[in-house]
C-alpha cells in the first residue's frame, strides 16, 4: 500500500498545481476534470472539492458535470479499460456479439470492472475507425476487425 499512497500523493500534487493555475476560471472545469480522469483513472471526491473551491463554483456543479459526461467516472477504472465500439458500422458488422463475448469471458456486464481491478468493459460511441469494424480499444491500442473468437486472444495480451 505504501507505494501506492506515495504515487497518489504525487498525483494530488500535480493536479493541485494545475487547479491553482485556473483560480476563478470556470471554463477550466472540463479540462481540469479531464486531467484528473487521465491521472487517476477516475475523479476522486477530494479533487472535486478542491476544484470547486478554487474555481469558485458549487460542488454540485462539479459533481453534475462529472456525471453528465461519459468520459468521467466516479469509480476507479480497471488497469485495462476495454472500450467496445457500438457505432453503426460496428453494430452492422457484429459488434454486439463481440461485446457479449467479452462479458462472458470477463464475467462482468458492460460498464463494470472486474473484482481484481484488472479490466473494465465499456460500450462506447463511434471510435471513428469504421473501415475496420468492429473495433475495440484497450487503453490506447485499437484492435480492428474483431470477432467473438478473437476475444480470448486479445485478453491474453493484457495480463
Amino acid at each position, binding site marked *: 500500500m505504501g507505494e501506492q499512497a506515495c504515487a497518489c500523493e504525487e498525483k494530488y500534487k500535480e493536479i493541485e498545481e494545475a487547479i491553482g493555475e485556473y483560480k476563478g476560471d470556470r*471554463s477550466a472545469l472540463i479540462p481540469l476534470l479531464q486531467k484528473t480522469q487521465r491521472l487517476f483513472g477516475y475523479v476522486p471526491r477530494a479533487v472535486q472539492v478542491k476544484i470547486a473551491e478554487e474555481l469558485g463554483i458549487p460542488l454540485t456543479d462539479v459533481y453534475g*458535470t462529472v456525471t453528465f459526461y461519459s468520459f468521467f467516472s466516479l469509480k476507479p477504472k480497471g488497469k485495462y479499460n476495454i472500450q467496445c465500439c457500438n457505432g453503426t458500422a460496428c453494430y*452492422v*458488422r457484429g459488434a454486439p456479439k463481440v461485446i457479449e463475448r467479452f462479458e462472458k469471458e470477463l464475467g462482468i456486464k458492460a460498464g463494470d470492472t472486474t473484482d481484481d481491478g484488472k479490466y473494465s468493459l465499456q460500450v462506447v*460511441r463511434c471510435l471513428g475507425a469504421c*473501415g475496420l469494424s468492429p473495433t475495440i480499444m484497450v487503453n490506447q491500442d*485499437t484492435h*480492428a476487425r474483431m470477432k467473438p473468437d478473437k476475444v480470448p486472444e486479445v485478453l491474453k495480451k493484457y495480463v
Partner: protein
Amino acid sequence: MTKTISNVNELQKLREQYKAAISQAKVRVLVCTGTGCVANGSLRVYEKLAEAARKRGLETSIEVLMKGEKEPLLLSKSGCHGFCQKGPLVRVEVSGTGREGSNTLYIHVKPEDADDIIESIIAGTVVERLLYRDLSTGQVYKSEEEIPFYRLQKRVTLEHCGKIDPEDIRDYIAHGGYSAVSKVLLETTPDEVVDLVSRSGLRGRGGGGFPTGKKWSFAKAAKGSPKYVICNGDEGDPGAFMDRSVMEGDPHRVLEGMIIAGYAIGASHGYVYVRAEYPLAVRRMRKAVDDARSFGLLGDNILGSGFSFDVTIREGAGAFVCGEETALIASIEGKRGMPRPRPPFPANCGVWGKPTVINNVETLANIPSIVLNGADWFRALGTPASGGCKTFALAGQVANTGLVEVPMGTTLRQVIFECGGGIRTGKKFKAAQIGGPSGGCLPESLLDLPLEYDTLTKVGAMVGSGGLVVMDESTCMVEVARFFMNFIQSESCGKCVPCREGTKQLLAILDKIIAGKATMEDLQLLEELALIVKDASLCGLGKTAPNPVLSTLKYFRDEYIAHVVNKRCPAGVCTALKEYYIDETKCRGCTLCARVCPVSAIKGEKGKPHQIDPSKCIKCGTCIQKCRFGAISVRS
C-alpha cells in the same frame, strides 16, 4: 518569440524552399498514419521502411533535402486517405507537388514488405503484389486516383489527406497552404468574403445545411465584442469520420478556414472543439495551432495585415448532445452540455454571450478552396441548391468502405455501387441508412435519388453529417430502428420531457415489437408518439430522433407487421422470434440436448427423436452447440 513569417513574401519564400527540397528527392514515400492505418500497424511499416533505407545508406528526411542534397527518396507520414479498410496504405509519388497521376498506391503493406518497396524505388519498378486488385474484375490498378473507389470522387476538403505530412506546417504551405488566408487578409474586405461565401452556395456540413454565408453575415452584423469562431469537431454521429480524417490529415486547412471566418465577422479568437474519442486528431490539431503560432500565421498581426486571431483547442468529454451548437457552447464555458432554446442564435448570443459563428470542420475546410477557386467554381461542382461536394462515410455491407467526397447531386446508387463496389456479402441490397441517428433508412426504390440536402429531407432522411451505412437482406429494419432509438435514448440530455420520456417510450415499444409481444395498436402508438417527439422536442436531437423509426415505418412497414402480426422476423435477426426445432430425421435420441437444456424444454425417449417445447425454450443456443448430429436448427 520571433515569427518565422511576417509577410506574404516570406510565406512565398518558404513555400518555394520547401517545394524545391521535396523535388530534390526522386520519389516521396508517404506512409499513412491515420487512426485506421495505425491500428493496422502502419507505424511499424514506417520504421521498417526507414530502416531499409538506412541499411542502403540512404538519407530519407526532409531536413537533409532542405540543405540542398539530392536523395532517391523522402519518407514521410501522412494522414488518412479514407480507405482505411485496405490499410496500412503507402503512397509513392514522383516528387514535387502537383505531379498527379504518377503515383503508386500500395495496400495492406506489412513491415516485411519494406525491403521490396525500397528496392523497387531504387530500381524504378513497382511491387505488383501490393497493388490494389478489384475483386470482381481482377483488374490491377497502380495509382490511387484510378482505383474505382476514388474515380468518381472529387476531393476538395480531402484534397491533401494522405498526400502531405499533417505535422509539418511547411508541407501544407508548400502545397499552397495559407495562400487563401493571405489573399483574404491582404486583398479582400470582410464584406467581400461574406459575399463570396454566400455566392458559393456553401451550406453547413454539420447536418443542418444552413447557408454558411448567411450565418456569417448575421454574426458580422451582430453587436457586441469580442466575437468568436467555433469549429465543431465533435462528430458524434456513429459511422461518420470525415471530420476526424480532416483534422488528422490536414489540420491547417481547418485553421485557415477559421482565420478567414474570423476576419469576415471581426472575431479575434476561435475554439476548436474536438471529441475525446479522437486522441490523434486532438494531438494533431494542437500541434497545428502551436506551429501556426510560431510561424506567425496565428497570433498578432498575421502576415502584417493588422488582423489578429488565435485559437484554443477544447476536448469534449463524451456526450453526443454536445455536438449541438448551444450545448457545445455550454460545454466550452465549463458547464454541463445541455442545449438551450433558440433564438437567440449563437450568431447573436454565443460563447460568453457574445456573437459567435459555429461551423462544422468540413464546412470550414471548404473555405480555403472557395477563396482560391472562386464562388462560381464551387457552385458548379454541386447542384443549384447545394454547392460543392460532400464527404460521405461509407460503411456497412459494401465491398469498399471509407470516405468518399463526391459532388452534391451524385446518386446513392453511384456511391454504393461504383465507389463502394456493391454489396460485399453477395446478398441483396436492402437499405441505406443515411444521416446517422437523425437520418433515415432508404429502400432500393430510392437509389437513384441525388444526394443533396433538400431531396433527402423530402424522403425522410437527412444528409446529416454524412454517415452512410449500407445494409443487406440479413439486417432487420425494426432492430435497426431500435439500435438508433437506444442510442438517442441514452444520449438524451434529459432537459426536455418529449425527448427524455418520449424516446424511452419509443424504445419500449420497439423492444416489445422485437420480443414479439406487440399488437397493431402498439404500432399505431409508435407512429403517433414519434410524430409528437419530433414536433415537441427542444433541440435537434429530439426533433430528429424519430426519423429512423418513421422512415423504416414508411419504407419497411411489412417488416413491422411481420413482427407484430405473424410474430416473425423476416431477416431472422430477432432472437425472441426465432424458433428452435429438432430435425427428426437427423436426431438419434442421444438425450444430450435434453440434459444440457437449462430450462428442461427438450423432451424425448432415449433412442427416439426429441422435441423442443417452444413455450419453455429460452433460445440460449446451448443445444445447438452440443448436438453432434447437426439435428437442431433455428427458423424464424
